[in-house]
């Protein structure tokens, strides 16, 4: 894509990558942020992301004739969110049983979620589903590469709005306070007469709903196909990213953009002819995640912003 741009293609591709590749990170990390604020961790969002991607693609393909090419993918996004919420309900119920470890449930949900996605997704690998419409902000340029880079997804914009809204939700609303109370001091919340089970269940389901939408942005926007290789650990990186973002929705947004850019590095360098380390550059996001975790974690004290009940037994 960068033939006409030469090396300028690299920053352009990274800029485009921050928006395109950052969108799934954004939804999954906001979802995980909501989940963890209630005091439970959901590692299974990797499976939710895959299920969301498959569901969105399949629904968009199946309803393309009855709903048309614009409504079908939008309907796909919604159903992907619902599919995510169903997986979330399984996680929410199981992870709150006595003596059951939420991390282990998450690992099981990665296996189960990807199994479901691959099982039902098999017939949809070949067909072409209608994609989400995009906002084309690059028409000022005659270069196709620039135009492609500035095709912005409405999902990205929705995510951009969602981050500050979630920030406000946690800070200023009664529901936000309830979730924080359950996550920080479950005993106090119980004394207030709040059902910890219900609050956590709804938070986990809501978080999984968002992760399902994140999956839809993979299959209906960028890269815009459904394959079994579509998510390679993005769901998991997003979980790590929440720690880096200190459980703060706005910082989740910035971190997601950073990760989207890192992910675009490998393909961008390959497009200008640096392909001898292509596969190693593909490891950039994972190494970046690890590096960030090493820098931000501390063995001595609990992290600022960490919900108090996170990692505690039921």
């Amino acid at each position, binding site marked *: 894509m960068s033939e006409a741009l030469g090396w300028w293609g690299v920053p352009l591709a990274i800029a485009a990558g921050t928006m395109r590749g950052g969108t799934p990170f954004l939804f999954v990390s906001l979802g995980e942020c909501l989940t963890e604020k209630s005091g439970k961790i959901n590692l299974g969002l990797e499976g939710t992301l895959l299920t969301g991607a498959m569901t969105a693609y399949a629904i968009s393909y199946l309803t393309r004739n009855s709903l048309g090419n614009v409504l079908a993918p939008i309907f796909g996004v919604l159903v992907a969110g619902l599919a995510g919420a169903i997986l979330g309900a399984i996680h929410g119920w199981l992870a709150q049983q006595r003596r059951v470890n939420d991390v282990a*449930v998450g690992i099981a949900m990665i296996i189960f979620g*990807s199994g*479901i996605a691959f*099982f039902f997704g098999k017939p949809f690998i070949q067909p072409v589903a209608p994609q989400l419409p995009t906002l084309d902000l690059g028409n000022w340029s005659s270069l196709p590469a620039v135009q492609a880079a500035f095709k912005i997804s409405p999902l990205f914009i929705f995510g951009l709005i969602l981050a500050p809204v979630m920030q406000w939700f946690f800070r200023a609303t009664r529901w936000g306070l309830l979730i924080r109370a359950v996550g920080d001091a479950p005993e106090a919340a119980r004394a207030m007469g709040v059902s910890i089970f219900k609050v956590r269940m709804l938070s986990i389901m809501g978080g999984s709903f968002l992760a399902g939408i994140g999956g839809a942005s993979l299959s209906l926007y960028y890269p815009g196909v459904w394959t079994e290789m579509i998510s390679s650990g993005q769901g*998991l990186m997003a979980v790590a990213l929440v720690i880096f973002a200190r459980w703060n929705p706005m910082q989740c947004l910035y971190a997601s953009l950073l990760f989207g850019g890192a992910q675009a590095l490998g393909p961008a360098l390959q497009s200008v002819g640096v392909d001898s380390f292509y*596969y190693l550059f593909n490891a950039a996001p*994972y190494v970046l995640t*690890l590096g960030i975790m090493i820098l931000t974690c*501390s063995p001595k004290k609990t992290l600022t912003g960490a919900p108090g009940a996170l990692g505690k037994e039921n």
Partner: protein
Amino acid sequence: MLTRKHIESVVLPLSAILVALLLFGLFCLAAGANPFGVYSSIYKAAFGQWSSWQNSLIRAAPLMLSALCTALPARLGLVIIGNEGALVMGGIGAISIGLAMGTAAPPLVVQILMALAGMLFGGVWIVIVGALRHWRGVNETISSLLMNYVAIALLNHLVEGPMKDPASLNKPSTFPLESLYQVGNIPGTRIHYGLVYGIIACIIAYILIQRTTFGFAARTAGGNLRAARIAGLPVGQLTLAICFLAGACAGLAGMVEVAAVHGRANASLNVGYGYGGILVAFVARHNPLAAGVIAVLLGGILASGGILQRSHGLPDATVLVFQGLVFLCVLYSESRYGTIAALQPQSNVTRNA
């Protein structure tokens, strides 16, 4: 002496597997397949006759080794799921030594060196995870899972670049290992000696954890970290040692896959023995001996993947769905310990009777 507690820890996981089978049957029914047909196909493909037993046991070998990568750190209270990465790194280490030895060295020496290299590579890979946990407080579950992707990227880099055999077009691979150096089969079977490695590793791991001071120290630290520190146990050294052993087991699985099954390193290394190993470890409740048994069961289920596709038209991901169901049911069974009256010790007097 079998106490009711022992019976409980056998009955609950087994009932969990039965419930998972039931749910899986309903799932197959919903997908339009006959559940009883599916069950009988799985049984036939896994344990129906000697040749299917051999298929299952060949798959069980890497599974039990990879399961130890999760089971050992679990005794220390760490949830490590870097099995796939350590397995891949072990494969890379083994093939590197195997290819570097030329053609003239004695096969046994080469095989021992390959096994050691595999264990070293896998061990160091997980030691990184343990070290980050101990000194930086980095969540070991997430870091080990991220390391999987790094290891796979490294493998892709090597088989597409520096170590690529130009003759491998469809599936980029390293140069093949000299057939002389490959790990052979147990006489009279198609099962390679990797199974023996696996069984020995499980027994050693069991003795180490249950019957040595080292294992006792590790279990103490896993039970109560603060108490272990106060008692003066070297928690850091324990963490690193356990992580090294854990990674070494998974690395050995990679060596077995390279030296006994594929004869070269390629993408066949990361086909899911890592994730299967996690499941085995959890179903076995992190008991190394039980992991050996469960690995044979799961090996059988993996071996039946092909037949489900051919005779029932179910996609190959069916096996993955089943694994997920088993995992979820086993986790649920954790919450049932101590709740079933018939399985509780009746009183202290009759407890050991």
